[in-house]
């Protein structure tokens, strides 16, 4: 760590925290139907949408109806994304004449984008037509993010309401999330990115004549280079804001047309965390106790900041194998120093590590450096953040509702420790809520550990490994951790565009998205039907820094106990071998 690293990290965190309160209040007012500027200007358009779609705003839904609507809407979206990929060859906006995507890859991508994961087993510029990128992938970036936000708001209503069976209207929450929050932010972000040089065009790929002709692997002379372009800025804006992460180009945000300048890099990495962080304040605002929101944000930062500092430290320290080759890894006025393998020199260590930790804590999955080339322990940090259940910021909406499941577990444990009835925000936490919260905490573990074990046992799983030994195991463990966490980033060494990985990862993404949403909505329904118990001397305070620390420890212990043995076989062994 050096002064430059500290300054850049501090600026990032200060700007992020400054945005939390205003954006948090704005979102709370949008969901509460209170005037917030934009919802007044577009009120008639919102009403028109409801009229056309036959939505009755006042019709509340029970948790079951809400959950069924979530499932049907998302599965229909999945089918549309699948169909667009399969038919893209005969559809318009395909200037590079891309053929139809294979069925297994289409299925994987459809599940991936519907579940807000954006795992990409394909290369965007060499596989997808512009229509598929825009109508299938970008649209799902909005809708999957809005789904997570809608489920969170339904859960918050469960805490706020008393003896009520309904949780609001899913369609109204979706419209408001998309129309008033995601669309305006994405439009502004797109324009700023275009100003920085991110491409936004319908023209086909450009061709440039090489100044220095080369030979390909077959010995054939190569004199031209195809430079892919397309409508990228509009997709990149929402991929960051909606914690989706799927890049327009295969190199994601390491590509100069996705992330050309220091300002674009700062804004893109800020966009990863801004909505998940602000939703904490939205939560506090809606439950009428802002301290509760700050406490949840504090618990996230208790894990996030040490992980970030450790990642920067391990990368800045450099690779001992490079040192033995005589490569200078010391930071100076001429170079950033450290382990620069797989990183852009224009971003250096701190911006690569900041992005890696932000993207894996936030269920985003975009990358501006290759996680496969990180030092074993900093790679482990990113992997562990995925395995904690994507609750440290997490996806928009999904991160906070996941953390609230851990909050229920924490309140229950704290209640047992001090002999008080477990209560949170005046709602008694009983066996049903605990059972559902336990499902939320444990389902991802099943879909990470069991498929990883299967993949390293069968030939179909081993065939995609680019590296033998501990690093190859890490690549597979990371892939299933990423899919189950609905993150989408990859240790790039694994060739996952095979029938086995497309189906296995697709199932992990599906179950770890919707089979967590369903128990969370069930908790919301159960809580909503309960009375609110008045605060008394027997009430356990849950807004204190002590409770934030306790909550962070509960998250850490669950994650550490479940995944330490697997991590010991991967990055920990690799670290020990590197230094032996």
């Amino acid at each position: 760590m050096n002064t430059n690293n500290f300054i850049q990290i501090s600026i990032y965190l200060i700007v992020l925290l400054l945005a939390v309160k205003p954006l948090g209040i704005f979102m709370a007012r949008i969901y509460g139907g209170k005037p917030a500027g934009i919802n007044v200007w577009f009120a008639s358009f919102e009403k028109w949408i409801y009229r056309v779609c036959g939505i009755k705003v006042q019709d509340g839904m029970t948790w079951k109806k809400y959950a069924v609507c979530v499932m049907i809407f998302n599965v229909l979206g999945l089918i549309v994304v699948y169909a667009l990929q399969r038919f893209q060859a005969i559809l318009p906006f395909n200037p590079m004449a891309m053929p139809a995507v294979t069925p297994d890859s289409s299925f994987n991508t459809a599940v991936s984008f519907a579940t807000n994961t954006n795992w990409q087993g394909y290369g965007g510029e060499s596989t997808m037509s512009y229509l598929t990128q825009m109508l299938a992938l970008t649209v799902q970036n909005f809708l999957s993010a809005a789904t997570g936000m809608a489920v969170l708001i339904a859960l918050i209503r469960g805490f706020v309401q008393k003896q009520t069976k309904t949780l609001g209207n899913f369609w109204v929450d979706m419209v408001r999330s998309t129309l008033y929050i995601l669309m305006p932010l994405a439009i502004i972000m797109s324009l700023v990115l275009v100003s920085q040089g991110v491409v936004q065009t319908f023209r086909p790929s450009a061709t440039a004549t090489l100044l220095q002709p080369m030979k390909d692997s077959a010995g054939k002379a190569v004199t031209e280079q195809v430079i892919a372009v397309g409508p990228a800025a509009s997709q990149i804006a929402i991929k960051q804001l909606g914690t989706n992460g799927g890049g327009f180009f295969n190199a994601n945000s390491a590509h100069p047309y996705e992330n050309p300048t220091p300002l674009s890099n700062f804004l893109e990495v800020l966009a990863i965390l801004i909505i998940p962080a602000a939703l904490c304040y939205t939560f506090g605002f809606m439950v009428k106790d802002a301290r509760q929101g700050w406490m949840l944000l504090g618990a996230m930062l208790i894990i996030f900041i040490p992980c970030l500092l450790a990642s920067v430290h391990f990368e800045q320290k450099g690779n001992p194998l490079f040192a033995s080759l005589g490569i200078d890894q010391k930071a100076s006025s001429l170079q950033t120093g450290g382990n620069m393998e797989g990183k852009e020199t224009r971003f250096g260590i701190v911006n690569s590590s900041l992005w890696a930790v932000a993207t894996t804590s936030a269920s985003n999955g975009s990358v501006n450096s290759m996680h496969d080339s990180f030092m074993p322990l900093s790679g482990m940090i990113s992997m562990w953040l995925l395995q904690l259940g994507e609750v440290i910021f997490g996806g928009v909406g999904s991160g906070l509702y996941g953390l609230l499941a851990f909050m229920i577990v924490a309140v229950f444990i704290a209640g047992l420790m001090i002999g008080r009835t477990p209560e949170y925000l005046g709602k008694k936490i009983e066996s049903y809520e605990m059972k559902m919260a336990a499902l939320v905490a444990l389902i991802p573990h099943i879909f990470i550990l069991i498929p990883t074990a299967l993949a390293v046992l069968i030939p179909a799983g081993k065939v995609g490994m680019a590296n033998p030994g501990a690093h190859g195991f890490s690549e597979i463990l990371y892939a299933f951790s990423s899919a189950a966490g609905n993150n989408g980033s990859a240790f790039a060494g694994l060739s996952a565009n095979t029938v086995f990985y497309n189906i296995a990862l697709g199932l992990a993404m599906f179950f770890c998205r919707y089979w967590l949403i369903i128990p969370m909505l069930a908790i919301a329904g159960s809580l909503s039907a309960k009375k609110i118990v008045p605060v008394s001397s027997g009430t356990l305070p849950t807004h204190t820094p002590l409770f934030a620390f306790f909550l962070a420890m509960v998250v850490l212990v669950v994650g550490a106990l479940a995944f330490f043995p697997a991590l010991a076989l991967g990055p920990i062994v690799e670290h020990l071998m590197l230094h032996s």
Partner: protein
Amino acid sequence: MDWLFSGITLVLLVVSIGFIVLCDRLMNIKDKGAQ
């Protein structure tokens, strides 16, 4: 292959709705216990 993935998607939807019903049953069991 398209039929295979259509089938998988349909099965995923059906088992997920089954999971919703299961969670609801669990809630009702709790209610009976409380009585």
